[in-house]
């Protein structure tokens, strides 16, 4: 919900509440004041009449029977409300009534004075009309004001938002936010600018770290590897040393491969591959299949290629090779002897299907790092993680499906 709509909702709620309260207070107050005024008038008239009767010694003539009547001595002295039917308007009208005794020539008479009260309904009508009008006016103008404010006052906020949306960590220049005279927004801009600067610095540090780590690790490994290769050239090398050297040599190679794989993974995660060029994926598939030929022949795999549509994707060529290579290698490696390897490349997706033993674990777990089906394998088990990272990087989707009939595993890259 928009901030404006939410504020308006609260404004409306508050105004409605105030309106009800105001109406109530105004109504009771007004009625009370009016009643008081009428009472006062009645008391004045009583004083006047009593005085006149005392002076003249005669009862006043009745001209308005609605307002003054003279009765026998049955009444008690009172000031009260009553309702009298108005034959003209055909409705009951509220009256304030005062009854009091007077003595004329030794005889007691009861005089009753009546005064019509303003009808409650009429008062309410007036009050409601006025209050509603005021409220509508108030709320309407608030809406307009808010709308204008949100367009004008919030403009810097929107500019900040737009700048943030367009911001990319890899860009060399830092985020530039326009100055604003409003304290809150200028504080926000300051905080955002600081944050992006910090994140960018971290990113650069991380990038440098991966590059340096790669360099610092690969150099000693290169020294180890070269020295060991020189060592085995020595014909005098005792036989028991050969085994040890070989183990160290293999371990160094393994470490180097592992390190290269991890460096590649972190580089993809850090989005350090920016330049994409159109890569013919069908050509990459064919090239990779050719490279794997020995391994496919050894397992006597049945290779079904096709359709192999001329699909082009904008990718880093190295990453395209790595993605397809890892998927194909996986399909060959985990295939059964005499099994099937099927490759389909369409504009929408690349599908690689292979026969293989049914997985006991969740297949998507195999995409995790260092997950391997066969724990004893020398491969670090990063191939599918790399493939998945590359997919994520380019917004492709890597999915797995299994058909029990024929135990067919399919990895699909949806472009």
């Amino acid at each position, binding site marked *: 919900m928009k901030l404006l709509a939410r504020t308006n909702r609260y404004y409306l709620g508050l105004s409605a509440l105030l309106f009800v309260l105001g109406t109530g207070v105004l109504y009771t107050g007004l009625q009370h004041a009016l009643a008081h005024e009428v009472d006062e008038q009645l008391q004045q008239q009583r004083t006047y009449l009593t005085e006149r009767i005392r002076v003249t010694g005669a009862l006043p003539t009745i001209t308005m029977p609605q307002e003054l009547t003279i009765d026998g001595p049955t009444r008690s002295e009172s000031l009260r409300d009553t309702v009298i039917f108005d034959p003209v308007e055909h409705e009951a009208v509220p009256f304030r009534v005062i009854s009091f005794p007077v003595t004329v020539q030794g005889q007691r008479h009861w005089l009753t004075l009546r005064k019509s009260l303003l009808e409650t309904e009429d008062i309410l009508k007036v009050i409601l009309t006025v209050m509603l009008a005021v409220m509508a006016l108030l709320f309407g103008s608030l809406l307009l004001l808010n709308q204008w404010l949100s367009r004008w006052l919030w403009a810097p906020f929107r500019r900040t938002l737009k700048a943030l949306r367009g911001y990319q960590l890899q860009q060399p220049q830092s985020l530039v936010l326009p100055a604003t005279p409003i304290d809150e927004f200028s504080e926000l801009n300051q905080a955002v600018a600081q944050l992006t600067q910090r994140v960018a610095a971290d990113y650069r540090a991380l990038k440098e770290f991966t590059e340096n780590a790669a360099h610092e690790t690969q150099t000693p490994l*290169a020294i180890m*590897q*070269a020295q060991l*290769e020189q060592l085995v050239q020595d014909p005098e090398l005792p036989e028991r040393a050969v085994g040890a050297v070989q183990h160290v040599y293999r371990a160094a190679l393994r470490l180097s491969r592992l390190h290269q794989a991890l460096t590649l993974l972190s580089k993809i995660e850090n989005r350090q591959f920016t330049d994409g060029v159109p890569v013919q994926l069908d050509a990459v598939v064919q090239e990779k299949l050719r490279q794997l030929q020995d391994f496919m022949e050894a397992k006597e795999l049945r290779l079904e290629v096709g359709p192999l549509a001329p699909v082009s994707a904008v990718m880093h060529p190295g990453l395209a090779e790595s993605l397809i290579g890892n998927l194909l290698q996986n399909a060959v490696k985990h295939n059964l002897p005499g099994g099937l390897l099927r490759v389909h490349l369409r504009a929408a997706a690349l599908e690689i299907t292979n026969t293989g033993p049914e997985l006991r674990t969740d297949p998507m777990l195999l995409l995790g790092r260092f997950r391997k089906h066969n724990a004893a394998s020398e*491969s670090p088990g990063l191939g599918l993680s790399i493939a998945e990272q590359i997919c994520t990087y380019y917004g492709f989707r890597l999915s797995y499906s299994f058909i029990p009939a024929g135990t067919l595993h399919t990895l699909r890259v949806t472009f």
Partner: protein
Amino acid sequence: MYLLAAHWPAAVAVVFLYSVKILIVEDEAPLRTTLLDFLRHSGYICEIAENYEQAHEKIKLYQYDCVLVDLTLPDGSGLDLVRTLKADHSLAGVLIISARGSLDDKVQGLELGADDYLQKPFHLAELNARLRSIIRRRQFQGQRHIMFRDLTIFPDQTLVLVKDQPLTLTRREYDLLLFLLANPNRVLTKEAIAEHIWGDDADMADSFDFIYTHFKNLRKKLQEHGADNYIRTVYGLGYKLETA
């Protein structure tokens, strides 16, 4: 597992008619000495430079057949050395060796005119094979065939003669033979051979078995043509091509 190493065509060996001069630019002392030792043993005349300044001075003063450049030097970038060489229209081949493995460096290096790029760590035999390939490509006046004992090979035609009789080899057998010929009298580890032949696929489970099978077939074919038995198995380690 596939990393980013691209595949270069199989290296092609030559028998040098005259001494080849190489400049090794590498700041890490142990690696520099190993490279010097190895390349001298392989028959090259080598000079070394420990840093950018030394290297720059040497390439300005002397002519080399090939320069081996490490990209990260304490006082400069190896890429600038490549630039200098190209600006001077030097005839020297350039082989970049780098630990950064950053693809941008590789692309940039090759765009600048380097002949090849090798990522650290590398197999010495692989380095030698690449070097020979660069030198062969540069020396057009050089002999275009390789002679080794009773073998003659014409790499341009992928033709192998044993005692002047043509020998039919599979692609892999041919690649293996050339790799051996690039590194005579040297134990080639199975790991180095596997990486030379299959690149990123080298760590597939069966690759050593394939090497064994391919070598068995290669030897059998050579013997059938009456060739001497110069491919020796070094137990547990790998193979060696014996010159005598």
